[in-house]
């Protein structure tokens, strides 16, 4: 299982599922759903803050522990 926090900068894949239900509820209400395209834009603050682009539409900043709960495609 690959996590969104493990993506390389500029790498694009798709979201499969979420591990933390509370975070999932929040992410979904912000438009981040399973099957969404997710691209890692950059890692900031020594990899503790991660910037993603979702569905090629908008950018969002996540904490590393938040991104770790997002399961993505790929090995």
């Amino acid at each position, binding site marked *: 299982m690959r996590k969104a926090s493990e993506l390389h900068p500029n790498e694009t894949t798709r979201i499969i599922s979420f591990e933390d*239900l*509370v*975070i*999932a*509820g*929040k*992410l*979904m*209400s*912000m*438009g981040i*759903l*399973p099957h969404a395209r997710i691209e890692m*834009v*950059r*890692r*900031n*603050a*020594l990899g*503790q*803050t991660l*910037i993603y682009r979702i*569905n*090629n*539409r*908008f*950018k*969002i*900043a*996540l*904490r590393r522990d*938040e991104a770790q709960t997002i399961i993505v495609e790929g090995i």
Partner: protein
Amino acid sequence: MSQHRNTSPPLVILAGNPNSGKSTLFNFLTGLNQHVGNYPGVTVDKKTGTLRLSADFEVTLLDLPGAYSMYPSSKDERVVVRQFLSDERQPDLIVYVADVSQLEKQILLLTQLKDLGYPVILALNMVDMQGVTIHADQLEEHFNIPVVPISGKTGIGMMALKLQISHMLQEPVSSSDPYYKFSVQEKKLTTYFKDKIPYPSPYGKLLTLHHAEWLDHISTDLRKEIQDKNKEERFNSIQSQISETLSRYDRFTPVIRRALHLDEGGAGMKITDRIDRWVMHPVFGVVVFFLIMLLIFQAIFAWAAVPMDFIESTMGQLGMLIRDSFPAGWIIDLICDGLLAGLTGILVFIPQIAILFFFIGILEEIGYMARAVSMFDVMMRRIGLNGRSIVALVSGGACAIPAIMSTRNISNWKERLITIMVTPFISCSARIPVYAILIGFAVPQGRIFGFEQQGLALMGLYGIGIVTALLAAYILKQVIKSADRSFLMMELPIYRQPVGKNLFFLVYEKTKAFVVGAGKIILIISLVLWFLASFGPGPSVPVQGSDALNTYTPSRPALEDSYAGILGKAIEPVIEPLGFDWKIGIALICSFAAREVFVGTMATIYSIEDDGDVTSIRTSMSQDRNSRTGELIYTTATTWSLLIFYVFAMQCMSTIAIVKRETKSWKWPAIQFAMMTGLAYLGSLVVYQVLS
């Protein structure tokens, strides 16, 4: 719902996600006819205004805080749900604002509000943006609600929106067909509570089941019953929320994909990416942030000084004018030294507040703030603060008051509280005159390693303040309990031009909030201080009565015979271990009005006419000897001790007043006062005992 028509104007609520342009639309529609209040229990601005639809038809417009869904994750976000589910007045109409370029992620809340049974208009904002094509008719057909394309910035579509609002208020259409189909379990539960939960729509009942724990308008019995029943039925609130959300998206996503066409990289995305490459760079990003802050700082010092001097000199002249025109007496003293001084103390902060919020507003409007917050989130979170706290801490270097007011958009209560508590440790501009006059006694002029020694000492004092603020935050993080989970999950919106109107209203509101919210307390404290400094138990106490007033010649007791003086002498045993005598005691008490009062008090004590004459004050201070021991008072040890005291101590009634306003209780300013003054005492004690 429309029985209100005859008594009060209809209520129209503006709802939408953060960054949907809701506030721009609100400012456009209401203009100066707006009022900012507070939601009960939290410090979230409640903005209402009047919208005139025709000569004799006005409606009340309420601008709800931006929200993503009816499932809030912080206390502040709960006001949106409370607005609809509690006993608050129900809206006659909802205008739902959505940014057209982000449409597919801004529709969730719309479908939820629709299911609550309200008539809704969808206002598609920013339709004038390049690279966006939208088929509003397809949305109208699918959601079965009127859709109006608008631009809050240029005013496109405003006429159509107003017409649609009038029309919907006269002939409200709300669909009875629920957008979300309940699961078997949800159906069973809502049917069970059909008559017990008063909210009319089934979706409102379902949300009450979800949020029973914190919805305070329902009775304790009902809450208990809901919780028991939920447990019995194994109702998993989060699971149910997620399947509801997914089911809603499943319905509207294909519709929006068909109705909306966005050019690749359009709607400002390309430019945003180009700017972000620099602004969000791990190294350059931080440099850019501090450059921006430096600029703001310069602006505050450079621009605020002129109006501040103007306010002070005008008020001073006004005082003189009053003294010249009326016979002297304690009433005139009260007006000039108490009332006018207090008023000056309020007005003098306005330039700093206005300038700081002007810049914060620009950063917020163009979309930079979200980036700054995400950059400093990790660092700040480790010590119990929030990414947004960095703005407050840096602004605290100018003045703690606007800095504390800027913490409002930290949605996690604990993080906001800690930010408020530690910001006054950062040395503000009012400490500079005190540092300037004292540093000369502590540090001789000269250079060390090519640096000016006194400058290094000044830097050290600032450094102590910063380190203490961060340490205090870390300690408070361990002490203050909070159940709220903290998240970042911050959307980074595309860069936009700031809207002038929004900036104007932000500055206006913040200034007004300070004057109205803190002004009263500042006035009362300055009157008390005036009383303490002007009256004493001695024979020169003025005689009461109107006859006596006319004949009374001003023979104010010397400061040392006043109550403040007596107090200063009374605390001498307490402050003696710090190396302070009663004169410093008086200055400490009077400094409570504001730190810079120290200089004026010294001038009064040493009977120096012009309190701007710093050299004379310093000469007098340097020659002053202890009356008992005959030793010089301002030795290195005493001066350092006093400097440290001013670094730590809470000596600003305006800060106390604003903390009271922002935390909605006297508890936190009291704790803050005790914490800071206690630390000041300990710090000074250690410094004096070590150095002497």
